[in-house]
């Protein structure tokens, strides 16, 4: 009796389409990912319906749940200028290397005295740096000086960028080159602390403030 032969098929599967797809996705995520620089503080903001994306050129004050205040300025050139002005005001000296490092840093929250030591730390250990945040009481209002110098520096760099854009024949909007003021407060921090930061901005006559929020569903225009 002849045996029925089952055709022996190779147990391998053609993986090419899967690999194609996997690499496509890898490429997409690689290009789409934007890496955030490590920040010394993580805050969880409240949510709002606002759909305004955070502006590129900004001066940001961060408030953590304990009420410590951190500061950040996005433009590296403006950072250098602001640091030089602050250094001469508080008589703290920085060397070239420290200034370069500072320009590329992100959020920081320490007094001017602590700043050189803080800059010298390698990136990972900055998180563990013991500090009380940037002082903002009436006797030693470093935050106010940071904001005012940063604003001036950011306006200067913004002005040159504006002129450059104009020379290239573009029609730039002057407002895009002005720094925006942002408050990133943790949802769990006490509002009175945020109010103090807001008051510092208002004392400098900067009244248009932005609060960082995560987005939520807008009942007015459901898409």
């Amino acid at each position, binding site marked *: 009796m002849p045996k029925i032969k089952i055709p022996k098929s190779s147990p391998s599967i053609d*993986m090419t389409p899967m690999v194609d797809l996997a690499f496509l996705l890898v490429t997409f995520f690689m290009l789409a990912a934007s890496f955030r620089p490590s920040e010394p503080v993580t805050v969880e*903001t409240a949510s709002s319906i606002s*759909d305004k994306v955070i502006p590129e050129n900004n001066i940001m004050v961060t408030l953590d749940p304990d009420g410590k205040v951190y500061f950040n300025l996005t433009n590296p050139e403006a950072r250098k200028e602001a640091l030089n002005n602050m250094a001469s005001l508080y008589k703290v000296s920085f060397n070239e290397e420290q200034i370069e490092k500072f320009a590329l840093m992100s959020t920081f929250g320490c007094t001017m005295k602590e700043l050189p030591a803080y800059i010298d730390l390698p990136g990972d250990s900055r998180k563990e740096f013991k500090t009380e945040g940037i002082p903002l009481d009436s006797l030693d209002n470093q935050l106010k000086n940071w904001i005012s110098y940063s604003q001036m520096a950011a306006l200067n760099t913004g002005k040159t960028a504006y002129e450059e854009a104009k020379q290239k024949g573009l029609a730039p909007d002057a407002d895009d080159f002005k720094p925006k003021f942002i408050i990133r407060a943790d949802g769990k921090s006490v*509002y*009175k602390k945020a109010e103090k930061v807001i008051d510092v901005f208002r004392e400098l006559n900067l009244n248009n403030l*932005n*609060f960082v*929020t995560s987005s939520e569903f807008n009942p007015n225009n459901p898409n």
Partner: protein
Amino acid sequence: MAEIAESGGGGHDKGKKRAKKSSTRVDMTPMVDLAFLLLTFFVLTSTFSKPKVMSLAYPAKIDEPVDKNAPKLNNGITFLLSKDKIFYYTGEFYPADRPGKDGPTKLTETNFSASGLRKVLADLNSYVLLRKEGMVKKVKAKQMADTTYTRELEQLKGKPEALKVLVKTDDKALCKNFIDLIDEVKIAEIGVIAPVPMLPAELKLLETQLKK
């Protein structure tokens, strides 16, 4: 693994020396492993939703004392915020020792949910919201341009009939409460929002309410 090498040809061995036909397939498993590893890494690390910002314009700080003859706030609502609690009263504040027509001001408690705060604001700001609805219909029927709509909505928000909101916070209120409130105020299309310091009499009233 995924590929079992098949023996090439074979069977007819007539003395001819053939070059061994080796399979042209490459074992792709390690590559796939790596691809998926990278994929997982990028999926998990990438942050898609960039944080958003909510703008709030504060009134300029003026050193001169507030004008006593300033027009009285009509059609206003005042929110008193404490930790995860919210109270409100409408119109002017009348302390217990100087009651108004309807006696001293009483606080009403509400919550941050859609049926609480959002409803209160929608009811009180119906003047703007009803007109806005009419305009939205016109825009949809192509009887009104978008730009006109935005401009008229801004004008509508500034009208005396539109609701105005005062926000007062005590020492225990959280930033989250404040932002949630401002958010609801924006949902209700209210144009005038003023965060102002709390009066001592209001604080007293709030504290007695909180103790209940």
